[in-house]
């Protein structure tokens, strides 16, 4: 610690200024006010405050990133605190400025309400400014300390904090859930305050999150590594048991959660099915498809046309008869789109598929097809699926339809991934020419990827139509394709669990936060940029299993080289 430590003032100022600008941005677009009612912890900490102080924390952390290498507490504290203070000065300056000049003409969000929040209960402007700088300084200091903590611990703390935030956000929903059934009412009362988590709940979830993260990152305890050590028979046993356990929870979930959360999960699930399909096209085969929504639309409209009992009624089939037709037509569309783009790569492929998506959307809206598919008025009165007298009528029932869809499609994707076909896709993704020289027939392999992806989207669309009971063209625009692609990227391209995680974050989270709607695209953009910078491989990278199962990192030059010598 008595090493001489050089501070880079330039860096401190740079990070401070960036943090300041981001913080101002967050304030000026109105997030602090919008989220002020979203309490996370016991009517004390709200989401608006978290939004306000996150930039400080993150930039202080990055500024002090050297601390771990230098092993210097002083460095971490000084850099973190200074960056925090600089950010604080920016915010305080805004407060002072806004108190003297009417900024509302330009910045609509600089409302009296915002100023009141920024006063942090202080009477005087001077006092408020000091508090702002002080709070930012403290947050920055904590960010700096974070940079010093061993990675394992800082990760654990982050997971704890994230879990607390998530559970806090969930409060409104969960309170209803907890309120409905007698036997978990006491639990609900312990975890939640009137608004946000109770202190007890906060501590509980923080500790749970930390323990979970530590458990996963501990080399001795890591579940994957431990299972891998068991004999094959037992390994399989563990897998089957954990699968059944997971399944049991998933089956029980809608009963526990109630209607609205089930509705959200159903929407997430519909995206998971699409994500698993696009993951085959983009993640496995490396074919960038931006018109994916087209197959979703074909699936939905096929079911709509064939089953509706409204004024567009045709054959009036039931869902189960229409479903295979929907999947078949989507698959055919996948092949038909695939043929013209066989020779295209990268950007060109993306643009042509984008065009295809638009063509379908415009066709659906067209006057020409209006007599059959209803144009902008869409198709109404699509009956709910029914099987052996069980009607998938509400979200809590449709949930099971979606769950079955996910299991089916997930199973197929999982099987294909590790089979000859999947390897051919991945080889093609890595190097098309070499793949061909390794005996892979590019035409059929590509078409198979397009067809499989399209089939999944068709299934997803069919369920979507049944879930809503009516479909309109605006549900099938480019944003859907972009959402699906984004969730794959966030989850980890090519990774199956990644699709689920990506869908939960990108589809589930925004649904939970109604006041979030205005910032949805901002959130997507920020998240994608952040992911590319910090974790380009996604939250659940494709190759983790290989990595996880190995206990020590490989030292390629030394160990395996020795036997190699003899062999050659």
């Amino acid at each position: 610690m008595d090493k001489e430590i050089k501070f880079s003032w330039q860096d401190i100022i740079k990070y401070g200024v960036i943090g300041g600008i981001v913080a101002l941005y967050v304030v000026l677009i109105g997030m602090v006010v919008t989220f002020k009612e979203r309490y996370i912890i016991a009517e004390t900490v709200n989401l608006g405050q978290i939004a306000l102080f996150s930039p400080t924390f993150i930039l202080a952390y990055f500024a002090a990133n050297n601390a771990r290498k230098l092993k210097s507490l002083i460095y971490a504290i000084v850099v973190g605190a200074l960056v925090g203070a600089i950010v604080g000065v920016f915010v305080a300056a805004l407060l002072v400025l806004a108190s003297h000049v009417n900024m509302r003409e330009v910045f609509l969000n600089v409302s009296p309400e915002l100023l009141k929040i920024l006063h942090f209960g202080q009477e005087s402007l001077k006092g408020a400014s000091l508090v702002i700088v002080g709070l930012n300084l403290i947050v920055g200091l904590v960010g700096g300390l974070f940079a010093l903590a061993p990675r394992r611990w800082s990760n654990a703390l982050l997971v704890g904090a994230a879990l607390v935030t998530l559970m806090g956000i969930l409060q409104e929903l969960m309170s209803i859930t907890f309120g409905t059934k007698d036997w978990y009412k006491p639990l609900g009362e312990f975890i939640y305050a009137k608004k946000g988590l109770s202190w007890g709940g906060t501590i509980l979830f923080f500790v749970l999150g930390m323990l979970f993260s530590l458990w996963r990152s501990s080399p001795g305890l890591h579940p994957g590594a431990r299972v891998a050590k068991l004999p094959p028979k037992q390994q399989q046993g563990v897998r089957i048991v954990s699968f059944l356990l997971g399944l049991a929870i998933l089956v029980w979930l809608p009963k526990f959660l109630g209607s609205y959360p089930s509705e959200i999960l159903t929407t997430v699930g519909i995206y998971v099915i699409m994500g698993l399909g696009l993951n085959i096209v983009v993640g496995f085969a490396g074919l960038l498809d931006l018109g994916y929504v087209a197959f979703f639309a074909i699936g939905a409209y096929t079911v709509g046309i064939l089953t509706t009992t409204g004024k567009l009624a045709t054959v009036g089939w039931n869902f189960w008869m229409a479903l295979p037709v929907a999947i078949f037509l989507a698959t055919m569309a996948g092949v038909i789109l695939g043929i013209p783009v066989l020779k295209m790569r990268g950007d060109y492929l993306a643009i042509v598929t984008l065009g295809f998506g638009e063509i379908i959307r415009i066709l659906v809206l067209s006057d020409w097809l209006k007599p059959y598919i209803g144009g902008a008025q869409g198709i109404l009165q699509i009956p709910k699926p029914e099987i052996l007298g069980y009607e998938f009528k509400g979200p809590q029932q449709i949930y099971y339809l979606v769950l079955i869809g996910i299991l089916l499609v997930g199973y197929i994707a999982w099987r294909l991934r590790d089979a000859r076909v999947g390897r051919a896709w991945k080889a093609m993704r890595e190097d098309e020419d070499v793949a061909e020289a390794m005996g892979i027939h590019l035409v059929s392999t590509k078409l198979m990827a397009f067809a499989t992806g399209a089939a999944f989207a068709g299934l997803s669309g069919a369920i979507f139509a049944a879930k809503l009971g009516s479909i309109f063209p605006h549900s099938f625009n480019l944003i859907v394709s972009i959402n699906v692609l984004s969730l794959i990227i966030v989850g980890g391209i090519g990774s199956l669990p990644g699709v689920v995680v990506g869908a939960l974050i990108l589809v589930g989270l925004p649904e939970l936060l109604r006041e979030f709607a205005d910032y949805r695209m901002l959130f997507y953009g920020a998240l994608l940029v952040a992911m590319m910078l910090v974790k380009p491989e996604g939250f659940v990278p494709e190759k983790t299993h290989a990595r996880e199962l190995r206990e020590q990192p490989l030292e390629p030059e030394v160990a395996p080289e020795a036997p190699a010598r003899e062999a050659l």
Partner: protein
Amino acid sequence: MAEKRHSEYILETIHVTKQFGGLVAVKDLSIQVPHQSIYSVIGPNGAGKTTFFNCITGFYKVTEGDILLDGESIAGLRPDIIVKKGISRTYQNIRLFQNLTALENVMVGHHPRMKAGWLGAVLNTPATRQEEAATRKLAMELLEFVGLKGVEHELATNLPYGMQRRLEIARALASEPKLLLLDEPTAGMNPSETEEMTAFIDNLRKEMGITVLLIEHDMRVVMSISDTITVLDYGEKIAEGKPEEVRANPRVIEAYLGRGAATQHEAKAA
């Protein structure tokens, strides 16, 4: 490898010419590669060696001429068909599937010898399972054979250079070729690695009965293991023969070292 031979030569190229616009990269090249031999193609940079390989493996369509694999014409066929017929190759600048594991790379190599399709994979039929297990076993054996035991589950991109070269050979072998094309397999290797690689190539022919067509810059390697050598310069064959014959050929020396060297050599010989 007890296959019936249809021709005296496993590979025969007949007046092969490859033109890129105005540039004639390979010119009227005819070679005959006997079964189970090691045949080297050498020549200065830009002589057209890699282009010649690309013609044989179907990467390029020949402008003129024909290519026979064991008597059967393969000119103009697609690369994936040609590999099925029994020619596989490695690349001058390593071209592995970087984000696949070593094992997966080799398993992809076995693709042309496998049958499982989409449905077989999804239904996980006994035939598929059996084929998958056999492929896995073969790949493991090949990895061991090239000295990559222990790094099977490592991503190709994470392997050190020498291992990547050997992995590429294992991948090529996985397609069970009759003829293996190696494009500068010792490039970038140190002398001891080069020596191992030389012994390894020699071994391929002896143990597996594979014919090797080799592009190589390292003269010691070429001279020590080749049965026959063809020398290219500006796409044309300027010499052909046993190592000793080629070594002494003044045109070869000229092509490699320039006019002056050749005259000097002649003077010495006289």
